[in-house]
């Protein structure tokens, strides 16, 4: 773990890869260190946000002493997200990957996804799989409008657009639930560390 400066109220922890991020994120959440207001996991880092009174160098030492969680996957049941595999890019993407549409859908559905981190928009989770090697090219021309609820793939990630926004991910379907709902606590359905299964809506 590398500890990098991020202003008067932040430290950026840098890791070798996403697995390390998830293991340390789980451990730091559990450790609940005093003075820590927020933990922001990302692809290779965790931003630790502190209150005004926290001594950053002392906190840096304490952060280094928190061992990573040994199992990133919790024992809790996965979140089930009902989806329909009817996205505009499904056919072309299957061709690009040398798969049939049913094969691509099957891979996506049987995959065990984990929310690695959120970003881009409130409630937009970046989900990574463990069974398959996902490496999905982005669309050469991003869409100016991706409909809310779109289920999409890009790079190593899958995700569901919480609201209409521009986007360059490949659309393979849509979710039948709101992934971001202000009346839910927490409002995001897909929170970092959560396991996720996509199930076909009947």
């Amino acid at each position: 773990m590398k500890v990098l400066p991020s202003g008067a109220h932040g430290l950026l922890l840098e890791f070798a890869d996403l697995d390390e991020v998830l293991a340390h994120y789980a451990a730091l959440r559990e450790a609940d260190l005093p003075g820590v207001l927020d933990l922001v996991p990302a692809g290779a880092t965790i931003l630790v946000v502190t209150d005004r009174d926290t001594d950053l160098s002392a906190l840096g030492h304490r952060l280094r002493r928190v061992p990573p969680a040994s199992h990133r996957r919790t024992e809790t049941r996965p979140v089930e997200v009902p989806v329909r595999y009817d996205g505009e890019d499904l056919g072309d993407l299957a061709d690009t990957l040398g798969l049939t549409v049913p094969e691509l859908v099957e891979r996506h559905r049987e995959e065990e996804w984990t929310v690695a981190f959120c970003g881009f928009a409130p409630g937009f989770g970046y989900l990574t799989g463990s069974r398959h090697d996902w490496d999905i090219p982005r669309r050469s021309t991003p869409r100016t409008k991706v409909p809310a609820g779109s289920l999409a793939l890009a790079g190593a990630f899958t995700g569901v657009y919480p609201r209409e926004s521009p986007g360059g991910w490949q659309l393979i379907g849509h979710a039948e639930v709101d992934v971001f709902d202000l009346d839910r606590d927490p409002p995001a359905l897909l929170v970092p560390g959560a396991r996720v299964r996509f199930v076909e809506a009947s």
Partner: protein
Amino acid sequence: MTTARTLRVLETGPLTTVQDFGRPGQSALGIGRSGACDRASHRLANALVGNHPTLATLEVTFGGLVLEADEPLVLATAGARCPGAPHLAPFTLSPGERLSLGTPAAGLRTYLAVRGGIDVDPVLGSRATDVLSGLGPPKPGPGDELPVGDPARPHPGVDVAPVPEPDAGRLTVRVTPGPRYDWFGDAGWQELTGQVYTATSESNRVGVRLDGDPLTRLREGELVSEGMLRGALQVPPSGLPVLFLADHPVTGGYPVIGYVDDLDVDRCAQLRPGQELRFSATRQR
């Protein structure tokens, strides 16, 4: 029974939003903090009318706000001084009287506090409007009636707050090295701290965009997106830094060379397009 206290909006100017200290602690869900761009002025406006600092104020960008009250309300403004209204001192707006904020001669953002606070419904624990994510109460528009809360604290009895006001001249703010200092090195740091930047008209609540000589990057390639805070100086491929303000994205994919001192970010939130900015190094690596 008390009647509902409200402020009636007649005009808003270029942009008026409801703001408080935002929604900290939810960035892991992709929810940015948002809140007042110039927190010190928001706090001061509240203090002048006897409000708790967490109550919501109106953040008025470049003046232009026109309001009326149905019953006497105690108000105060702080930040950029708008002609046409008392500044840094509480005053009473009487029924039938019209408050009209002119265009400030210096500074950009004025905070208008009302005794009792702007009492719109909070969203995820805050009344701040985040222009990037769209979270928070809607932007006030002409014809809106803004609810005002009940005053809970004694009136401070202040005449005037003796604080410096934003000025239109060159601003110098302190910077410390950020997480990706090494993408630019000492030479890049010298470039950052050795030149005069100009704030551009592309600036908004997300960030202050700067014009100047592009910074030289030592390293090619892409950064994996990472978490950032208010005050970050993010350097996109153009080499021209963007200083992140309240509505910055939770994560960003360009390297952060440095951070502006937290209190100085408030001063940067008052930069007008065309105004000059210098970074002064407070700490070397």
